[in-house]
């Protein structure tokens, strides 16, 4: 009893001293609550479907950020992981009758293998060469998909896959909770020592190697981790849409994820997630504009970038928060002195 009280008091203290004081953390809390409570406010299948897909793409965009945003290994073919995850989950489910809870993690493991395969050329290629090479991989796979339509379903894709759960609300909860969990894990990875090494590899790989870090291992690790998370997203997508088609491997999906991630702010994890939850419903709700909606989407992206080239959400965060020049702790922008070391702000 006392122990529980102790932890409760500790939780209360953390919330009071570390969460409430920063608008970005409050926003994260609200985001969690919004995602978890959404079905209580609406049971509109259409809205739930939009947010379910947004959750899937949020995992996907965050996994791109984990790889390309953090380690700077520009991946233009991120749809490969998504497509590999979707196709292998679908094939495993259809031919071996493995239920979704088995086929999705197995699909993610295939994603890890894909990450290794892409990762190996990346060890020698730099920057733009790497970006343009990775672009090739999903297209090669797409060619194979079209060449063997008997096994892969060709243009139509693989349909008749098991549902994730009987009702839409259950599906929403499975995917939303997974999204929150996986994104928290990705954030934790990037916030750990590994994440610092990822950052350092992007900034100056030679210096990192000179400090005695095996950058090869870390780069491959980034590829595998990213492949894992994107593979899960792909598997979820296949089971949610109940079809794994060539659209999961298309160039436009690879570009889309880059747009989401950079629009939100690369190398932040929260940026891409927020960007997906901002842009995806926006595009869906713009269906009143009919033919103009993709045009509007492109214009919005272009204009936002013109004024906030570091990404929308990073820009927003820098407006409401300020870093203490002495102890590097973040403070709300309205404060005059730092909340930890009482140094003068700005």
């Amino acid at each position, binding site marked *: 009893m006392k122990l529980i009280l102790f932890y409760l008091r500790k939780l209360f203290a953390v919330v009071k001293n570390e969460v409430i004081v920063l608008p970005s953390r409050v926003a994260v809390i609200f985001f969690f609550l919004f995602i978890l409570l959404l079905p209580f406010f609406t049971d509109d299948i259409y809205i739930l479907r939009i947010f379910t897909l947004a959750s899937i793409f949020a995992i996907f965009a965050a996994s791109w950020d984990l790889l390309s945003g953090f380690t700077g290994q520009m991946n233009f073919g991120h749809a490969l992981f998504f497509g590999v995850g979707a196709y292998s989950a679908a094939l495993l489910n259809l031919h071996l009758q493995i239920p979704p809870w088995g086929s999705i993690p197995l699909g993610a493991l295939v994603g890890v293998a894909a990450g290794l395969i892409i990762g190996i*050329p990346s060890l*020698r*290629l*730099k920057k*733009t*060469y790497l*970006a*343009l*090479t990775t*672009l*090739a*991989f999903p*297209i*090669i*796979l*797409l*060619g*194979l998909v*079209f*060449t063997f339509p008997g096994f892969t379903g060709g243009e139509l894709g693989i349909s008749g896959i098991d549902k994730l759960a009987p009702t839409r609300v259950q599906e929403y909860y499975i995917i939303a909770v997974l999204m929150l969990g996986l994104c928290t894990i990705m954030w934790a990875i990037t916030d750990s020592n590994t994440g610092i090494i990822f950052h350092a590899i992007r900034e*100056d790989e030679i210096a990192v190697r000179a400090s005695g870090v095996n950058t090869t291992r870390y780069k491959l690790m980034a590829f595998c981790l990213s492949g894992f998370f994107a593979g899960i997203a792909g598997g979820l997508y296949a089971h949610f849409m109940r079809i794994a088609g060539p659209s999961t491997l298309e*160039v436009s999906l690879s*570009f889309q994820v*880059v*747009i989401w991630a*950079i*629009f939100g702010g*690369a190398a932040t994890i929260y940026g891409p997630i927020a960007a997906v939850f901002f842009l995806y419903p926006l595009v869906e709700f713009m269906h009143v504009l009919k*033919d*103009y909606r*993709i*045009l509007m*989407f*492109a*214009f919005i*992206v*272009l204009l936002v*970038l*013109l004024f906030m*080239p*570091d990404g929308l959400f990073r820009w927003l965060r820098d407006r409401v928060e300020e870093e203490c020049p002495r102890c590097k702790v973040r403070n709300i922008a309205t404060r005059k002195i730092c909340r930890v070391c009482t140094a003068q702000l700005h």
Partner: protein
Amino acid sequence: MSLVVDIIISGVISGSIYALLAIGFSLIFGVARIVNIAHTAFYMVAAYCIYAITNYLGWPVVPAMFIAVIFSVILGMVTYKLLLNPIREHEGAVLIATIAIAMIFEQIMSLIFTGTFLSVPKLVEGFFAVLGVKIFYQQLLTLCAALAIMLVLLLFLFKTKFGLAIRSTAQDREVANLMGINESYVAMITMGISVGLAAVTGAIVVPLTILEPHMWNPPLIMMMAVVVLGGLGSLKGSFVGAFILGFAEAFVVFVFPMGAFFKGSVALSIMILVLIIRPEGLFGVYFEEER
């Protein structure tokens, strides 16, 4: 035997088209470090312009081509000045800005011309036969035009003062700036030249191909593969790479049944194999890393 002729004709034509596109892409990358995804979108814009001028205004094809190229060059320079120049320091932002620009062009084209397949009449009719293979005069014309444009570009880059400025900016931006070259001006003109090349490619390809709003996608990927295969920033590399991939595609299409489905895969696999052996491409210039 006719198979060989088929492969050679088709390979030479697609090779020369890829070469033109890749050289333009490589130029702007070298000078301004912009990975211009919208490059082939300009090619599409020029092609649609020609269609619009010949169909709605009733003009003949040749002046329509000139107007289309000029229009695309102006469009390219304005886009660069307004949308890309302000964010040039942010690599990622430039990248998705060019993707967004390409999407905008695609959408505008599909709004104006709808998604239907369109075509433009050939400049010259007729064909002659070599070993039982039809070779259209239009194909020969396209080939000659492509080679002529490449020759002019080479003369411009290697024999004029401005060409020297472009090459030196590509080699080292800062030093070029210190030597009194107005780097942002050079970048804008290079963007114009690069888009101009894409537009010219569009103009000479348009009688051979079908117009549709997604037509910028397939050449984009092949163009990027060519550029990487040949080595970024190397004109010779782009030229050689384009013909290697052009012939590889033609070979796969004509030799294997179903070849059209995996021609891209084969070409891209060749690119990856070359890169694994030579990470900087066939004739890659190793750029000084900007730290």
